[in-house]
């Protein structure tokens, strides 16, 4: 018994003392990367930019020793090379700490790289690496390098990566022209034959937002701003949509949460505004015997009248019905624009292929390989919308109705 106890104790002590603190790393040994940016050089090399958080400057207020805003909240380090792992190792020449990717929430890929080489090659390492999280959001830089996006400071969110992510998520929710996509979702869509991804693009102006002085202005020059939706085809960016078409795409993806729809009334284009509060879009496929595919899109939307600029009698049900129809028209129109655009580009960003797959798996197996080129552009789309006006705000008739009398 005693010998057993001695053996056990010495073994335990040995394990603890001999192994030491294997693989431990103290917090001050880490360089927390908030975002990474990937650019393509002319000679085909990648340029890799990491945005490293300076914790003292982010959490700085109230801490002694570190001045709150004397130095920027993030620093960027750039290196180029033929593959990302090599670049990451080479970055150690410039960064004094272990570059730690576990808290990287944003990946920015330059438009040039997405258009010329496609995003496939750089995604592998992001998915394979154990530190990197595939839940990180991905955006494309529009008319600027990913490096510029990395370097631009923001004022409210101290860490620019957070600013981009939060902007994207918030605009997706309240305006509905952009979608937030994580690396994992992007890869899932890339490998699915019945679906192609859309990715939000962001824009800034080169060399304008790099200094702390730039964000000390109320209206900074180099602003990070959501631009549009990058449309991908076979892993390459083929086009970028904005405005109505973007919104149509988001409608079809059933990701619109809130938005505002202008209502046309008696010739006046923006007579009233329908403020969407909830909606549900259902996309279903109907494969006919001859082989033609009809997609049925149904939008059920509910919202309020939030603004009226024309003397409309909102107390009357007829007027509201009419208004609901107008909104339905507008929504249908924007969805049809999106469908036309996708069919023109021959890329199934709307996920119709998946709907067909669910509806008729047998046929889908035959069509799978040529879906986007041969079948998708020929798909007939029936859009129906069902809009309901729940409330008209605090009053029924607008006050200018009395003025005109």
């Amino acid at each position, binding site marked *: 018994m005693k010998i057993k106890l001695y053996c056990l104790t010495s073994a335990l002590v040995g394990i603890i003392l001999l*192994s030491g603190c294997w693989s431990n*790393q*103290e*917090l001050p040994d880490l360089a927390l990367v*908030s975002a990474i940016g990937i650019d393509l050089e002319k000679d085909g090399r990648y340029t890799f930019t990491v945005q490293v958080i300076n*914790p003292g400057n982010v959490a700085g207020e109230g*801490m002694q020793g570190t001045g709150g805003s004397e130095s920027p909240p993030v620093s960027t380090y750039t290196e180029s090379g033929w593959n990302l792992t090599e670049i990451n190792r080479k970055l150690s020449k410039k960064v004094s700490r272990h570059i730690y990717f576990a808290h990287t929430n944003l990946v920015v890929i330059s438009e040039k790289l997405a258009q010329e080489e496609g995003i496939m090659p750089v995604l592998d390492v992001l998915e394979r690496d154990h*530190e990197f999280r595939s839940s990180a959001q991905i955006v494309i830089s529009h008319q600027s390098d990913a490096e510029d996006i990395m370097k631009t400071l923001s004022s409210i969110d101290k*860490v620019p990566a957070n600013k981009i992510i939060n902007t994207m998520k918030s605009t997706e929710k309240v305006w509905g022209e952009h979608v937030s996509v994580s690396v994992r979702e992007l890869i899932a869509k890339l490998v699915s034959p019945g679906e192609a991804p859309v990715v939000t693009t962001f824009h800034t102006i080169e060399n304008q937002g790099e200094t702390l002085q730039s964000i000390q202005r109320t209206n900074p020059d180099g602003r990070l701003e959501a631009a549009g939706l990058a449309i991908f085809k076979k892993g390459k960016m083929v086009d970028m949509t904005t405005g109505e078409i973007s919104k149509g795409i988001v409608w079809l993806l059933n990701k619109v949460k809130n938005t505002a729809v202008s209502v046309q009334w008696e010739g006046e284009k923006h007579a009233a505004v329908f403020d969407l509060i909830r909606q549900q879009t259902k996309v279903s496929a109907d494969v006919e015997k001859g082989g033609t595919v009809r997609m049925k899109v149904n939008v059920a939307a509910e919202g309020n009248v939030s603004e009226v600029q024309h003397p409309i009698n909102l107390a009357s049900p007829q007027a509201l019905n009419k208004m609901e129809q107008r909104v339905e028209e507008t929504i249908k129109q924007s969805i049809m624009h999106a469908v036309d655009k996708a069919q023109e580009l021959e890329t199934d960003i709307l996920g119709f292929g998946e709907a067909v797959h669910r509806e008729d798996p047998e046929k889908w197996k035959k069509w799978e390989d040529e879906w986007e080129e041969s079948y998708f552009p020929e798909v007939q789309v029936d859009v129906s919308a069902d809009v309901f006006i729940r409330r008209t705000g605090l009053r029924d008739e607008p006050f200018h109705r009395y003025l005109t009398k």
Partner: protein
Amino acid sequence: MPYRLRRLFKSKKQQAPSSADQKEKTPLGTSLKDNLKEFKKRTGNSSDVVIRTLTTGGMQWEAAIVYIDGIVDNTSIDEFLLEPLLQLEVPTTPVLQQDIPDYISEQVIALGGIESVLDWETLFEAVTIGRTILFIDGAAKALSTSTIGGERRAVEEPPTEISIRGPREGFTESIRTNTAMVRRRIKNPNLRVKTMKIGRQTKTNVEIMYLEGIADEKVVEEVRRRLKQMDMGSILDSGYIEELIEDQPSSPFPTIHFTERPDSAAGNILEGRVAVFVDGSPFILHMPAVFIQFFQSVDDYYSRSYIASSLRMLRIMVFLISLYAPATYVAATTFHQEMIPTQLLIVLSAQREAVPFPALIEAFIMEMTFEVLREAGIRMPKAVGQTVSIVGALVIGQAAVQAGIVSPAMVIIVAITAIASFTTPSYSMAIAARLIRFFLMVIAATFGFYGLILSFIMMTAHLCSLRSFGVPYMAPLAPFVPADFHDSIIRLPWWKAKERPRLISGQNNVRQGDDLKPEAPGTQSIRKQRKNTGDLNED
């Protein structure tokens, strides 16, 4: 059941009966002079020994009373022993020389407990507990009268177990007061008290108390056996007994529960436990103890069951915090930075930036500082107690952070741990957590969460392997006893608690009647009921 049996029959080697019992007894002499001489010799002329000689029975019998001053009740000696003796007239019928003691004990002394003493050993046992001895010339027999008394601490509110709603009295150092306080609560002739004298020098009174018919006889027998084979030099507190009779002395977890409250003691006896009272100690032990018992406070039974249940769960959760908070912090900041939310990590990282030590050392510094402060706070005279809190608040709270030795987050962790460790109602359990915490911190710094999980598994396995007088320590959770669950991490209302804990009270499980749940009748039926029946408990 099988757990208990297996454990109990595996009894330890029977020790040889102690030599003190075997000693031959020296009989008293007949001459008063010789007896007093012998008495003086044996007490070494101690100055607190009082010998008063007198003549009684109408100036014809030589006698003497002896006692130790301070532990006797002087009033009863004066009024009920000395006065009748001095006023005793010559008996009407002649009394034989050797019958005088019987005559006096039967007709003269107005005290309750009188025993005849024939030998010196019994005599000294009696005199050292505060009895008064009456020697009579010519008889080889002395009388020992019960005059136990002396200054004792009054019954006060127990300082270590505070309750909001509940009795305010606590045990004292006097064993008789203590047993009386319990007996006053359990008016049942089946409440048994058995006395033992333990300690070669101290001859301490140790009493076990249990309810015959409810307590498991085997446990009672086992407690008695373990107490009997104890051949200690001295017993000064129940802590001595606890250490000598517990099941698993090498475990950091206590397997015997102690209390300072008579209501808690009574409650445990009523559940079928055995209580051990030790003279001179305000803490009584009860056994068998289960893990969950150390998280139950008496207030739980007096407050509403929802509140009591949530508080119990809170205490258990907080106990885990007091064990794991610093270890988790060390593990998360040195191994698992990816598990900390980004914003929090940035804040922590900014704080750690200026700290010169690794997280483990930092945690150790702070925990040690806190332990030192706590210990100082206990040992310090009350008059300077304020100083500790001021120094503590400044050292831990501010100066250490400002000096850049520790990070503010660490201070928060230590503060949470400290406060958490005070919520455990049982001091012996809280102190166990205090010790294990340091071990866990080293494990966390060596193996990270992997080590913490392993240590948690080890600790659970250890807890499940413990037994307290044959009862599994983790009962009623492991083994799961559904019938006992009503009083474990939760406390169901009393009308749900029909049975006593099964593993503890062996034979007699049912404690109360059925259908105790109060149901409010309609107004009309109350009126009727009052007229017809009346109250069940009315006299």
